[in-house]
């Protein structure tokens, strides 16, 4: 998978900038809280518009300030796993899982519902309401919902931060299996070093250092 990003964004008096290029299956944006890691994920997802730069995922140009290309989030074909699961409270687990699946053209899907449920161990949750799920269950459903939409790249924003130690392990195993068995590339955001050692990710530091590195680039 090819992933290339060069973005710059001014938010208030903060300047968020990152330039990176990688073919790795699991790229981790690493840095302390508040340096703009989530903002970078949002820029990749199309939820936040960079001031300038470009974003290329799997040879597809998602954003380019020069040629004025800016695909809407729904056109980018990326899966986003948020810190909180963000399940739709008025839909049961099954309807949550199928939300993106139904919107994806059949040739872009690569896993049916049954397979995803078996993979994540959530088959028994299908008829439950989101507010009856534990944090770990909700996060697994959220991962399933993103996988069912056939993403080219999974964005994960500290997916373990709202979970206790046992649930963290559970989700970490799921993430490793997504990387190794499903071979979906992952862009992972964290401020926890131990997660990165465990996942053996390619680490991209974000923060004051990253910004000074970007001084070489002329946007």
């Amino acid at each position: 998978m090819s992933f290339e990003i060069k973005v710059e964004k001014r938010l208030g008096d903060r300047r968020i900038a990152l330039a990176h290029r990688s073919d790795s299956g699991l790229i981790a944006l690493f840095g302390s809280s508040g340096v703009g890691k989530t903002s970078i994920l949002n820029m990749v997802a199309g939820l936040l518009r960079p001031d300038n730069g470009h974003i290329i995922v799997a040879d597809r140009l998602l954003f380019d300030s020069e040629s004025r290309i800016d695909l809407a989030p729904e056109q980018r074909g990326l899966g986003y796993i948020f810190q909180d699961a963000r399940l739709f409270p008025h839909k049961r687990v099954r309807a949550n899982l199928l939300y993106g699946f139904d919107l994806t053209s059949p040739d872009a899907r690569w896993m049916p519902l049954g397979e995803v449920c078996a993979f994540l161990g959530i088959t028994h949750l299908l008829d439950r309401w989101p507010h009856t799920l534990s944090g770990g269950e909700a996060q697994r459903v959220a991962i399933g919902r993103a996988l069912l939409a056939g993403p080219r790249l999974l964005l994960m924003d500290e997916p373990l931060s709202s979970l206790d130690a046992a649930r963290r392990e559970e989700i970490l195993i799921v993430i490793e299996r997504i990387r190794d068995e499903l071979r979906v590339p992952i862009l992972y955001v964290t401020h926890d070093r131990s997660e990165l050692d465990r996942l053996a990710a390619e680490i991209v530091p974000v923060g004051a250092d990253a910004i000074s590195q970007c001084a070489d680039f002329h946007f």
Partner: protein
Amino acid sequence: MNLTAEEWGIILLSLKVSVAAVGCVTPIAFALAWLLARGRFPGKLLVDALVHLPLVVPPVVTGWLLLIGFGRMGPIGRFLESWFGITVMFRWTGAALAAAVMALPLMVRAMRLSIEAIDARLEQAARTLGATPWHCFVTISLPLSLPGIAAGAVLGFARSIGEFGATISFVSNIPGETRTLPLAIYAALQVPGGETMVARLALISVLLSLAALIACEMIVRRGRSQRISHVL
């Protein structure tokens, strides 16, 4: 309490006027609530103030303004008459129009609160799953604001049932056409020996309003218990 045919007529007319008023004004109220909750445009403060105007202006003034606008010689009234052959003057439809205008601010307030309570992050999640803005609105935003829409509609209905000042100055007090419950009570008060009639109609209007308010509260609580939304 056995109701006379006259009393039934008054109640049914009140219900007809209120249902028509709320039915027609609900989509408008929702659109305004959405605009005020989510929109960013110059003059938003002015729109907000205009929507709330019927809440603070004397109802007689609202009725008089409707008379100017929708009367036979009024700009909107003339347009309706010549293009559609519709006249609202001294008709029950005029009473519904007055009730709708008076109910609008309350309905917009309730709906706006429920729209503001929608977690925008859920809409972001829907977009990343492939939903266009319109699909996201229909499948996420609208269902999540339904309790607020329902609460606003019931509140508007209760307000319409009680509408007096704007109605009487706009479409007068015509038995069988514009004489809704409050107007009938007022008329009965003017008649010597009408006290019994007044008491009976007053009781009915209290019961109707109470039922509507309880229904509103129940909708809100149900929404909360399902964690769908928070209104009021």
